[in-house]
């Protein structure tokens, strides 16, 4: 068929000297190295956004609708210095952490049941299908009826906000654990709670961390919204109450300062807590990049 033949060529062999023609690796120039720093890139973006805000506010020229960035910053610093904002933030955060912790514990119990028994799995699937789409804030009127005004009602809706997304993520993570790893764990005679804690939880940690992040964001939103709704009658309000009150008194710059605090706390938790958690665990283990 094919009569074409590649030409026959002479063989050759080379003695290789050690490679010295150029260094094997070179450092990047300084500006490229700076640009590799994530916080620097994000910081630059924030400065640009603040500039746009300042310009838009000056063009608008109405402090009541949109105070300038500088005015907001001043109101923010004032409120920090006189201790009002930190106090409100502490009130909000303490309620938030209680609800968050309770939600995590319940999610752990539910998912442990779900991986141990079939009826537990059915329970988890049914409950998450029912409650996950239900906005937590929609339960607030009911919670107020049951638990009265105060932090109990808030914790109830917070648990609702955290529990379902976290349980859903954790359960998906558990189911994604490789069969070989499961067998290795059972090979050592691990069963029940020890099996879940020693094998499933660490193996599913990427999914669990992402569930914790989603749960945190949901809880934070729900809390501020809930405080806005019933802050007016609560004895000592949190950040939502601070925003609501200052809006009523038309201190728009303080409203913005309150919002900025909400955002800053969110950023700080994301940037410090979750990033550190990921760096120490899933990235270090090479299961997430």
């Amino acid at each position: 068929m094919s009569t074409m033949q590649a030409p026959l060529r002479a063989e050759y062999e080379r003695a290789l000297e050690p490679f010295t023609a150029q260094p094997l690796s070179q450092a990047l120039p300084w500006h490229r190295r700076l640009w590799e720093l994530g916080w620097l890139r994000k910081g630059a973006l924030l400065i640009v956004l603040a500039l746009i805000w300042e310009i838009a506010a000056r063009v608008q020229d109405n402090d009541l609708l949109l105070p300038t960035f500088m005015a907001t910053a001043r109101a923010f610093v004032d409120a920090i210095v006189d201790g009002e904002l930190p106090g409100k933030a502490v009130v909000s955060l303490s309620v938030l952490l209680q609800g968050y912790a309770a939600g995590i514990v319940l999610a752990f119990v539910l998912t442990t049941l779900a991986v141990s028994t079939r009826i537990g799995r059915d329970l988890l699937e049914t409950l998450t299908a029912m409650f996950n789409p239900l906005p937590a804030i929609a339960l607030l009127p009911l919670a107020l009826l049951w638990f009265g005004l105060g932090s109990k009602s808030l914790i109830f809706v917070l648990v609702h906000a955290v529990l379902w997304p976290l349980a859903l993520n954790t359960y998906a993570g558990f189911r994604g654990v490789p069969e070989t790893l499961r067998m290795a764990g059972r090979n050592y005679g691990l069963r029940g709670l020890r099996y879940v804690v020693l094998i499933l939880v660490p193996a599913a940690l990427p999914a669990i961390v992402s569930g914790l992040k989603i749960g945190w964001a949901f809880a934070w939103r729900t809390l501020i919204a809930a405080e806005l709704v019933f802050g007016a009658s609560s004895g000592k309000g949190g950040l939502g109450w601070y925003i609501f009150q200052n809006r009523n008194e038309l201190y728009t710059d303080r409203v913005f300062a309150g919002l900025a605090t909400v955002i800053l706390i969110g950023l700080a938790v994301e940037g410090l807590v979750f990033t550190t958690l990921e760096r120490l665990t899933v990235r270090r283990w090479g299961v997430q990049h």
Partner: protein
Amino acid sequence: MADGNHGGAHLRVVSHPQPLLQVDEVSLEYRTPQRVVRATHRVSFDVHAADRFVLLGPSGCGKSTLLKAVAGFVTPAEGQIRLEGQRVDAPGPDRIVVFQEFDQLPPWKTVKQNVMFPLRHARGLSKAEAADVALHFLDKVGLSAFADAYPHTLSGGMKQRVAIARALAMRPKVLLMDEPFAALDALTRRRMQEELLALWEDAAFTLLFVTHSIEEALVVGSRILLLSPHPGRVRAELNSHQYSLASQGSADFQAAAQRIHQMLFEQPADGVLAATETDAAHAPQPTVHAAGQRS
């Protein structure tokens, strides 16, 4: 002679007439939503202390399922498996498995912690004791320098070495290996076989080894159980203690490999009569024909 090298193993077998592991008329089945499939049919074999017992067969002969049944992950549909006379009914640390897949190592533990993990949680050793034992066995597989590395930074061969060190450190009654070198490149596989045999020379543990490679079976095993496919039934039990990596090129070794190949890929003995009638035309080259089909 190569025979002389393994004389010790021979003597050990003779001095322990009671087998360590008995697989007695075991049939295994697995379920799909529509049907029940028989993986092995009434397979029996005995493994004695210090055996390097190999389950060899083409894919679909149920050899891996058989190993998982010995490990306790799969319950036999009939027959029973006994370890030192005790019926096997659940996974346990007296039968440690080395799997083929690299994800058998928890990625959240360093190499040393991986070896310590079962020592701490199944054998209940203290942290210091477990660390000592772990370092000792990591040294045996040549990984002391990587004790604090995480598994994702290791090559495939190193990961399998960690799994072997972890299994040996537990001193199981029988070490189960499920095609442990099948996912490695040819050069690494050869080196791992060599190292496994060296470890065995060192400690003479009891090994149950699953493979689909005839050469690997001859090199690694001291006794080979041949299984036919669909469903797995015992075709033969052969001695292979006389072969090693060094004898791999020899005529003897080639002849043994050829013999096994023919036994595996020919029509089974009870089908010979039928085969002579229908497949007479293929008779001169049955091995080539079958090998092309199965691989």
